């Protein structure tokens, strides 16, 4: 069950999407999200969806990964859909007691769900095709101007890198601790929410303790490898914008313009 979590999982590759500058990929993702929220009709959203699908095709990431990354947000999707259906005023198409579903509500629900799916798919594409370190580097560089305001940008980036590095390790360890506690008779599957939450304590405490031990050892190992903050630090991989980065930016600009155009041509769904 724990192995299904895919956020922050990188699929190494050599596709055009993979080779885009990570800074540009972050900017593109942000613009993509803007486009999703600007679009107020199906045509615009469908175009955005096609855009994301094209990104997946070019990158060679299987489309089934979208389904996987969608799993954790299913409750949010359902919640949004239900709320929209029930509470948007308009032509009634179904009624059960005091609950009524309107046509406008259904339309809006579909719109919102499409938007959320595109949002998750688009931002997952960023993490699937960009190594977490490249991502952190990019964030560090994009935020570099804030260093002048005494913001600990490098330190934050390093913390993110380490967090990302240890996610798989800690997941593995959680699995091990769970097996160990089950072998000792711990029951994690039955009972109400309170009981299940209580059953997590014997898993969380060993995990917590071992994380501290790991942190301690890692800090020592980093010091032994001459880590002393970002003063005088160089990077093996230098980030440089290439022509393809500007091409991708151009394509996203086209998407934004088309979405805006569609907003004028087609009726708004709100």
């Amino acid at each position, binding site marked *: 069950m724990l192995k299904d979590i895919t956020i922050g999982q*990188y699929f*190494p590759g050599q596709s055009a999407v993979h080779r885009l500058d990570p800074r540009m990929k972050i900017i593109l993702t942000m613009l993509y999200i803007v486009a999703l929220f600007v679009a107020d009709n199906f045509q615009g959203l469908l175009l955005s969806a096609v855009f994301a699908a094209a990104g997946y095709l070019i990158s060679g990431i299987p489309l089934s990964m979208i389904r996987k990354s969608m799993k954790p947000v299913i409750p949010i999707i359902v919640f949004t859909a239900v709320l929209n259906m029930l509470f948007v005023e308009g032509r009634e198409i179904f009624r059960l007691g005091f609950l009524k579903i309107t046509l406008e509500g259904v339309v809006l629900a579909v719109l919102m769900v499409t938007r959320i799916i595109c949002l998750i798919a688009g931002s997952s594409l960023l993490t699937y095709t960009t*190594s*977490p*370190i490249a991502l952190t580097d990019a964030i560090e560089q994009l935020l570099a101007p804030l260093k002048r305001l005494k913001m600990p940008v490098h330190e934050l980036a390093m913390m993110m*890198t*380490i967090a*990302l*590095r240890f996610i*798989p*390790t800690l997941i*593995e360890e959680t699995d091990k601790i769970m097996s160990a506690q089950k072998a000792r008779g711990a029951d994690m599957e039955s009972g109400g929410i309170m009981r299940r939450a209580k059953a997590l304590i014997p898993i969380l405490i060993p995990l917590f303790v071992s994380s501290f*031990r*790991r942190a301690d*050892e*890692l800090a*020592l*190992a*980093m*010091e*032994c*490898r*001459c*880590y*002393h903050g970002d003063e*005088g*630090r*160089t*990077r*093996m*991989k*230098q980030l440089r914008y290439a022509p393809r980065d500007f091409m991708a930016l151009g394509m996203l600009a086209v998407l934004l313009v088309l979405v805006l155009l569609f907003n004028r041509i087609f009726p708004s769904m709100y």
Partner: protein
Amino acid sequence: MDAIISAKDLVFSYPGDTELALDHVSLTVGKGDLVAVLGHNGSGKSTLAKHFNAILLPQGGVCYVDGINTADEDRLLELRSRAGMVFQNPDNQIVATIVEEDVAFGLENIGVPPEEIRIRVDEALTDVGMYEYRLHAPHQLSGGQKQRVAIAGIIAMMPKLIILDEPTAMLDPRGRAEVLETVIKLNREFGVTVLLITHFMDEAAACRRVVVMDDGRILLDAPPKEVFSHVSLLKQVGLDVPQATEIIHELRRSGINLPDDIITDEECVEALSSLLASSGKGGGRA
């Protein structure tokens, strides 16, 4: 032979501990040597190792590594780039999420230009036989492979001395063999001085010199053949001897004539088969 480590009268005790973790330890290690430090838990072997790259500073005595006083704070980075350290748990010393970026970590910290980092990372990964794995994530590797990546991260910095603190303690037999082979290769082919802290006797037997520690003191310091001839002394301080040595020792005790300097399996097989061959001949004559 020039000395790379020269430690005199090191004294150290951990805060809140009345016993000395290091009790006036002196040790000199020559350049290019391959030294094993043996001892049971709490014998002070890790504490001693941590003095050689200034993780711990001596409370008494002085410690020079490659001519640098380890207490000299201004030369700390220089010292640590010359004396690299590999730890027991491979998971807790890999910082980056991609193998090659982890190997580059130390070089980035000391400000090596990017083009040179690239070259040295590729060389280091080739040296430990992990070049094909350069784009893998650490959690996709076996324990032995992770430990080799950690070693690559150290040798990329081109240290003169590598200290390995029980690098094989958490590995399976295959991983142990991989790591030991890599360490010996580094010493033989590149002339790096290696200080291998271990509690595996067969690993110590593969070194040129063995230092046995007990209670914060150096008990024995000699080539492996000589150290392992002290079977009963080693057992007294809670250490084993290599299996081959133990068999020969027991056979000698029951009056069978065998050489007393056997430490590897091959030597043991040879000695036993020549013994059997000669007794076979003797039996035929009688």
